[in-house]
């Protein structure tokens, strides 16, 4: 059995550097472009961040392994994002919890998952049903609107593996054990996220509040949540903690699947619909497929059925890396499956990685600066 080549073959360092160079320039542009000054820790952190993202991209290109190095960058981004985010909140309001004051002053950061609950009110009442700022502050509504539109069109559900600063959590916990304890996870569970999308969208419109955020979001446990002032807020915080523990830590650990992302997140379900119009996809070249099923076992998003990626594929590249014959590959719709596979992969990785760096790079640098400040 031929191991698929990492497209130019290991050792073609020149071509790797050729691709790495423009990305390195982009990384420096996005991370240095608007930032200047700062104390020693900030400057060191910025340099480390640039070197880190550059190194990960080089390894993606040079080794030909997409998922392995993408995951490192993705998981680190998620962890440091949360550190930087919580620190920001403490600086602004003195606490990672929010109360009536933040709601009434409309200063709650707008998260991309809220988009799913805003669709019906925006269409019916032409308002944003969220206590956020339209233009000011961290994660304003208008900024997130532009970002959501951008990644929906360019990446489709690829956002879940190349941008989402929450996804890195269960991507990380799903990789801790070498082998799954729960070996078989029914792919049908992924439809639960579509049910979440439908019910949350309708329930939010009925209740006139973003109900997933108010009651269910697991990531409230690691970002911001309501201050506990009565029984209701206590119950909410218990739910947040439980859903985080179960869906983001325990189940991904035991199954080696991204349970929260694959089965619970309504935004993931919405982005799956964008996969239909997205130019990039992961496809199986059946002429090379030997039916070993490694792709299906490897897929963390329960997206592969009968060795074909389905609507919920997040283009993480894990199946591409796992495939022993190179049948699984990144593909551009409308082009021949058996030609220019290198170009297809490169054309996808460039925007995907650029998005990761742009969205999370600043937070990674800030989070790193906070850690460095502990030591100097």
């Amino acid at each position, binding site marked *: 059995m031929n191991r698929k080549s990492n497209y130019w073959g290991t050792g073609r360092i020149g071509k790797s550097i050729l691709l790495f160079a423009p990305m390195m320039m982009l990384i420096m542009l996005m991370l240095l472009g608007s930032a200047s000054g700062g104390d020693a820790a900030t400057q060191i952190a910025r340099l480390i961040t640039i070197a880190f993202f550059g190194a990960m991209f080089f390894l993606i290109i040079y080794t030909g392994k997409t998922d392995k190095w993408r995951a490192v960058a993705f998981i680190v981004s998620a962890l440091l994002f949360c550190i930087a985010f919580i620190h920001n909140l403490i600086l602004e309001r003195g606490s990672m919890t929010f109360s*009536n004051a933040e709601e009434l002053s409309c200063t709650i950061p707008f998260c991309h998952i809220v988009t799913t609950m805003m669709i019906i009110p925006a269409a019916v009442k032409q308002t*944003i049903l969220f206590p*956020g700022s339209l233009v000011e502050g961290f994660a304003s509504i*208008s900024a997130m609107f532009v970002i959501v539109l951008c*990644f929906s*069109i360019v990446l489709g559900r690829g956002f879940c593996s190349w941008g989402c600063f929450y996804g890195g959590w269960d991507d990380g916990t799903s990789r801790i054990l070498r082998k799954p304890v729960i070996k078989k996870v029914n792919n049908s569970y992924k439809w639960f996220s579509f049910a979440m999308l439908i019910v949350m969208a309708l329930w939010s419109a009925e209740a*006139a509040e973003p109900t997933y955020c108010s009651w269910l979001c697991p990531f409230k446990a690691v970002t911001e949540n309501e201050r506990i002032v009565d029984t209701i807020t206590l119950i909410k915080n218990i739910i947040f903690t439980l859903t985080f523990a179960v869906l983001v830590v325990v189940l991904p650990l035991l199954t080696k699947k991204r349970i929260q992302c694959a089965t619970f997140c309504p935004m993931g379900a919405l982005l799956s619909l964008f996969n239909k119009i997205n130019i990039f996809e992961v496809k199986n070249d059946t002429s090379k497929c030997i039916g070993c099923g490694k792709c299906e076992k490897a897929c963390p998003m329960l997206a592969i059925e009968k060795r074909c990626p389905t609507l919920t594929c997040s283009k993480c590249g894990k199946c591409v890396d796992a495939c022993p014959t190179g049948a699984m590959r990144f593909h551009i719709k*409308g082009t*021949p499956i058996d030609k220019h596979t290198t170009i297809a992969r490169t054309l996808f990785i460039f925007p995907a990685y650029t998005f990761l760096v742009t969205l999370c790079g600043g937070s990674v640098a800030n989070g790193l600066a906070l850690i460095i400040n502990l030591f100097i």
Partner: protein
Amino acid sequence: MKKILSVFAYIWASLGTLTILVAFIGMGSWQQLSLNLPFMRVDPQYSGGAVVDSVVRNNLKISIHENVFPGVFRQSGNGFVQIDVNQCPADTIRIDSLLINNKITTISATPEKAEADGFEIEDFVKLADRWIIRLKIEK
């Protein structure tokens, strides 16, 4: 035909990075453009609604917002009127003769609590630059 489709597909795929760069580098402009969209306004149940009157009472600048009845498909029977005190007084304040929902009321507030004649207080928060008082109203 297939070749033309392929070329078009590659061109479209190549635009991905450019799209992301344009979106982030020009974020300020895109944000301003997006504000022109009809749904780009925070729901009145959070923003308090539009200001319908500004008055001065006892050297305090007061903004009175419109009546707000929350709901998406239908308005709730219970709503509120938001009053902004556009300073942060350290002491007790008294706002006389405010016309709220066709009733004249007097609002008194300390940094700890607020009271209004003829209205229940729904919310009272002190921000860095102003106090917000919400009075309960019914349809």
